[in-house]
């Protein structure tokens, strides 16, 4: 039986892009949450955490309401890119991104807050602007925790089902990700295909968790000589 591998490639691509976006935006949000006092800080934290606890169908509904064809954002998108966002693979990226964000922001905030503040103070007293302090001091010192969080976020966005099916739909060859393909294979009684896909994604997920744990374990003392401070 010839297996259509498109869902796997699509899932990997969607997960990679959404994780990259989550890293860029998530690190910035996490830095804000860890370093700046502003009104609504804990509200922002809660809003970012929400996708972790809400049912995926609710998230999908929110996305449709916010980014659907009839909404202002949806129209701007359509005007800019010449087509609607919903029911495209880009919509699957947004859905996956929503799952990656909380994992990244939560871990990165904790990692930034656990960096000994005297390093950052030292950097500032040496005349370094904020971005340099972040890039050369905070980020490298929090690097392992963030790498671990990135791996987990990737795995999480690889496996989304509910939001994707609500917002990107299930169009074979276009928006059908691995999780959705498995659902359809089971529904249509194609047990062999379902088994194969399940095994593949389980293996990928296991590999990622192994990597994340390795990173996490080495975050505080590990193979390299433990930091003396």
């Amino acid at each position, binding site marked *: 039986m010839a297996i259509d591998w498109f869902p796997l490639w699509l899932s990997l691509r969607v997960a990679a892009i959404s994780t990259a976006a989550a890293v860029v935006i998530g690190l910035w949000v996490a830095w804000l949450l860890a370093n700046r006092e502003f009104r609504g800080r804990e509200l922002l934290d809660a809003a970012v955490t929400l996708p972790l606890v809400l049912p995926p169908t609710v998230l999908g509904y929110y996305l449709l309401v916010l980014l659907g064809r009839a909404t202002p954002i949806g129209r701007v998108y359509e005007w800019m890119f010449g087509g609607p966002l919903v029911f495209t693979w880009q919509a699957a990226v947004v859905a996956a991104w929503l799952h990656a964000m909380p994992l990244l922001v939560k871990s990165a905030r904790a990692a930034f807050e656990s960096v000994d503040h*005297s*390093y950052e*103070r030292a950097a*500032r*007293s040496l005349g*370094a602007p904020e971005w340099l302090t972040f890039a050369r001091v905070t980020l490298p010192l929090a690097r392992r925790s963030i790498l671990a969080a990135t791996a987990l976020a990737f795995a999480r966005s690889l496996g989304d089902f509910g939001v994707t099916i609500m917002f990107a739909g299930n169009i074979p060859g276009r928006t059908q990700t691995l999780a959705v393909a498995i659902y359809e294979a089971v529904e249509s009684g194609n047990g062999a295909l379902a088994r194969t896909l399940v095994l593949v994604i389980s293996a990928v997920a296991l590999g990622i968790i192994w990597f994340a744990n390795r990173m996490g374990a080495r975050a505080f003392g590990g193979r390299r000589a*433990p930091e*003396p*401070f």
Partner: protein
Amino acid sequence: MLRARLRKRFPAGPGSAEFALQLDLTAGSGVTVLFGPSGAGKTLTLDCIAGFVRPDEGRILLDDQILFDGAARVSLPPRKRRCGYVFQNYALFPNMTLRQNLEFALHGRPRLERRRRIAQMLERFHLEGLQGRRPHELSGGQKQRCSIARALIGAPRMLLLDEPARGLDAPLRAELYATLRQVRNDYRIPILLVTHDLDECFELGDDIVVVREGRMVQSGIPHEVFDRPASFAVAQLLGLHNLLSVEIVALDPLRKSSRLRYLECEIEGPYFPGHLIGDRVWICVRPRQIMAAPRPSRVAPNQIPVTLERVRERVHGLRLEFSGDLAAEDSNGNADEARRVKDWVVEIPPAAMRLL
């Protein structure tokens, strides 16, 4: 020249009492030591000056530049204050080599200048050949010198040191003092050093500011402060012995003398201008200025009979601790011989009594 007027309040929280910092500080070039017990607000003072903590009110001036002005709502960020800061744990970036640590402070300067300054610092602080090492590959003394070099490489206008000698053993301490003396001679900038170690005040301090509960209680040249503590509290902070509460029973302005009562004995004292008969005053006497001897059969005038409570052997001679909070030093006595005698007399020369 640093001039700072700092006001910062911390309301009482769970497990902590209210704390208020009210400190007026002037520091010229040379080492000014901020001395005081833990929790007196010394590190907080440094953090306010460096810009890590924002005072509620006040003003910080460094060489006529305003670093902070509460009324005018001016507060320069730490990176623009040009205050070198040496942290208690050195805070050398563990992810960078020694050279990168130094170079970090020269961000944005031309390459040639960076090279020149790094070479200069490596030589001045005896760090040649260690450029490629990371902090965890350096010895304690090297880390210490590196952190001082890093704080100075950007040519700051002031150097702040937060208990740099804490937790160091004696040789490292001596090395640090030598380095800091060199820095004091090479750089004509104010150096503010926080410590609760008296030896450090004497080793390094050109000036000393005694801080207690957020306020300055005395300032001046270290040995003057030590010789003339302004109050009982300062004398206690300085770890002075023989703090005696005496009652004035007679005053003789002509002979510049007085009669004092301590422990039911009347002894001769110096004249205390501005005090009345019947006043209780605190006086302070250095242990080595007290004369102690085994009690003779007849106690002479001005001698106070006491009993010996403890003999401590120290590096230089003995310290004899008597009843009535009196302590004397004996530079060439024998501890066992001293212990054999229980009853002693002590005599305090009037000139050695200092009024607090």
